[in-house]
């Protein structure tokens, strides 16, 4: 370890990690290399494509633009943390059914953006979906089936919530 390196603690997908790295090392590279979470992708390195997006303290960020020192103490969620091992989350199931993933390289980032969108706006309009996903570039789908996937996930969630509420009564 280099004297100029930092010791950074992060909680990623619920697990605590201590990482030794140059403070300027990108959070993207720490996740992929140090923590072997290769679900986080690098498409451009300039914060334009969103394939590196993760949730940091509940906020969507492009991990290629975050020096790891600035993630010290943060709670991070990546695509690997969206569902327990072997299961697909409600959102992931919607993507599978609706054709929201083709080549799959934008998919992890897209799922993180959609996750935040649905957390903040459980029943988004098409324009809210467009805006929420505008920072995630997809070259394969033309976005149409990604929109449908988000709408389907929102509807499924809403139905599940109504069902729970009616049970509770």
């Amino acid at each position, binding site marked *: 370890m280099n004297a100029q390196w930092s010791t950074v603690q992060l909680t990623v997908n619920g697990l605590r990690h201590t990482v030794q790295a140059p403070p300027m090392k*990108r959070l993207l590279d720490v996740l992929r290399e140090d923590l072997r979470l290769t679900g986080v992708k690098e498409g451009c390195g300039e*914060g334009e494509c969103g394939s590196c997006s993760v949730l940091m303290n509940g906020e969507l960020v492009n991990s290629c633009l975050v020096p790891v020192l600035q993630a010290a103490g943060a709670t991070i969620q990546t695509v690997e943390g969206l569902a327990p091992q072997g299961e697909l989350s409600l959102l992931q199931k919607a993507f599978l059914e609706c054709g929201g993933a083709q080549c799959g390289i934008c998919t992890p980032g897209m799922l993180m953006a959609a996750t935040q969108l649905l957390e903040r706006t459980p029943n988004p309009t098409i324009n809210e979906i467009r805006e929420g996903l505008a920072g995630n570039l997809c070259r394969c789908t033309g976005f149409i089936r990604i929109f449908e996937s988000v709408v389907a996930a929102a509807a499924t969630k809403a139905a599940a919530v109504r069902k729970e509420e009616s049970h509770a009564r």
Partner: protein
Amino acid sequence: MRGNARSHEMVAPGDLAGVLELLAAEPNAWTPIAGGTELMVAYAAGRLNAKKLVSLWGIPELRFIEWNEESVSIGAATTFRDLRAAARIAVEFPLLAQSAGWIGSIANQSRATLGGNLANGSPAADSSPVLLAYDAEVETISARGRRRFPYSAFHTGYKRNVLAPDELLFALHLPRRFAGHQQYLRKVGTRRAMAISKVALVVTALIEANRVQEIRIAAASLAAFPTRLTATESALTGNLLDAAVIACAQAALLKEAQPIDDIRSTAEYRRKVAANLLGECLQQFAAGSGTR
């Protein structure tokens, strides 16, 4: 990815005093980095010359929105997401709330800061014209004390500003006097989202009985740094908003604007579109339909 993490040092004192102490002890040695949405892009392109960085991220003293009777004070490390989420900003300073949504994408907005946008000083900066139109004041801070002056005096040239080597942007103060003003903003980029400005126009005006009492016109990418178009303002102040005056103002803008050709657009396009935007703005004001 052309940056080498090992070639850079970064420290995070964690509080404002610590940062100022460092800047005072080694002026010109340390480059502040807030949300990183500008510096990390340069880094990845292999173009970050700053080898020593001091982090402003996570310093609560720099990230606030405080309402006083006469003004609102916005900390320099306030993110654009903070601005968009602040309901009172949307009500009283709608142009600021809207322009905050122009910045990059949702993921960029959660990291990009108002201070970073200004300190970077791009002539295409999204928040600068808004601050000019809202007559903002800048407050800077250093170990030596604080300064306060109009934002219009902040930029002095292409990516040059008046910050001393040991100084940080501390806050922006916006006077709460625009509730009765007509307001307009429009950004023209390469696409609807994630677009650097080709040109933008931001205008606040106090119009009474169709006569312009006061008008502030600011633009992006019409000069080497964000400025108001004062000659264009003069063509309007005191006049009735009729077709002749509007045409005259557009002519004034065509002369006053000094855009350039660059990788994103042409001088001719920027100039012509800016004049069109001004026309659109003034038509809206004349019809009383500018945002209020």
